[in-house]
């Protein structure tokens, strides 16, 4: 599985105008990625909390210790890394708090969050604790943090937050003029591909879909009675080989109870024949449904 850098920056200083433009850039990057809307929202929220905290609590204007942030995709996880200098005298407090948050169970984290939001006085400066709680709740994995002595007064604080894509049980791509609607709902056990498929670059389009399936192998295997419904009005030849590969992958990961429903237009003998051929290639019987 490929790993790549999704987003990063390194700044000597940050303010709200800069943060706005950073978040705008992140929005653009996310819109070009085939993540589901929920993953996009999670990435955006964790990033904005993280960057705001860096801006508020990091020490600015240290050329050798800039405010750094990156988002990396590694296998089925998204890794957020932030690094900034803090005043050494605050290290112990921060470390203690992060250790405390890391130890909280999901339930206790929720309880603690509710009590903090309900009792803490809101101040413009305050809220770092709350941001940390939100990031922990979103990612649901412990923070990996470290401190490195930088100067007498300052320490570099690095924090790594991991968001697992496995957590996401539904994958959805809205249809466009050239691309199909795709939805894999592992909870409801309903998989669907419908509409038109003639993307500009079918290989790229379907590679991303296949990647999601790869990342959710277990989810596919664990479904009891999954149904894959294919209702394609039109697909071009470069889509066809990708669709075949996609179905093959789903068949491979799903249990034998998988049902594939293939819908075709009334009287379209050619489509019916083609469906039978695909069924043969993927080694799975289709339930042909005339529309």
């Amino acid at each position, binding site marked *: 599985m490929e790993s790549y850098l999704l987003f990063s920056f390194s700044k000597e200083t940050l303010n709200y105008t800069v943060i706005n433009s950073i978040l705008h850039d992140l929005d653009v990057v996310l819109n070009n990625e085939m993540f589901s809307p929920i993953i996009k929202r999670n990435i955006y929220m964790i990033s904005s909390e993280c960057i705001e905290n860096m801006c508020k609590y990091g020490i600015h204007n240290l050329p050798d210790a800039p405010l750094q942030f990156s988002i990396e995709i590694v296998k089925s996880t998204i890794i957020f890394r932030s690094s900034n200098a803090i005043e050494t005298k605050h290290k112990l407090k921060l470390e203690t708090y992060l250790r405390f948050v890391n130890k909280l169970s999901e339930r206790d984290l929720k309880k603690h969050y509710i009590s903090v939001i309900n009792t803490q006085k809101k101040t413009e400066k305050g809220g770092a604790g709350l941001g940390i709680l939100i990031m922990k709740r979103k990612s649901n994995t412990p923070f990996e943090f470290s401190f490195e002595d930088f100067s007498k007064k300052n320490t570099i604080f690095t924090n790594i937050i991991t968001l697992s894509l496995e957590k996401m*049980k539904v994958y959805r791509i809205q249809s466009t003029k050239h691309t199909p609607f795709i939805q894999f709902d592992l909870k409801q056990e309903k998989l669907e591909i419908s509409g038109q498929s003639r993307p500009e670059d079918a290989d790229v389009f379907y590679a991303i879909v296949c990647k999601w399936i790869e990342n959710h192998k277990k989810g596919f295997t664990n479904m009891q009675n999954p149904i894959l419904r294919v209702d394609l009005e039109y697909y071009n030849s470069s889509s066809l080989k990708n669709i075949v590969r996609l179905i093959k992958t789903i068949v491979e990961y799903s249990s034998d109870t998988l049902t594939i429903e293939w819908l075709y237009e009334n009287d379209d003998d050619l489509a019916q024949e083609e469906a039978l051929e695909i069924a043969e290639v993927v080694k799975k019987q289709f339930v042909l449904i005339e529309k």
Partner: protein
Amino acid sequence: MKNISITGSPKTPEVNFDYEKGIVEIKGRSIPENSIEFYKPMIDWLEDYTKAPQSKTIVNIQLEYFNTSSSKCILDVFKKLEILAKDNKDVEVNWYYEEDDEDMLEAGEDYQSIIRIPFKMIEIDE
């Protein structure tokens, strides 16, 4: 009482507070630079509203996401509405969340556990 009507932006939600209709609506993203400043007119409006409220108040909250500082301000909004409920006024809170967005559903449940007003959780299609 003047109504509040603010159009949404990528950083701030659409806001509609309608006195005559007894409607309080916040929709969209809430990540303003200064949440306290952004929410202050709403808190002030609600403060006045509680003095002469309609017999029924309908609250529609449909947030895509909000940052930590907004989360406290939103709680302040609910705390004002809680006063109405304590005065035996009818307050209906509709918390909208997008299909499958368990995080936003959970955020609604968090507020509900603090505020003594029942929430109606409404799932919407994207």
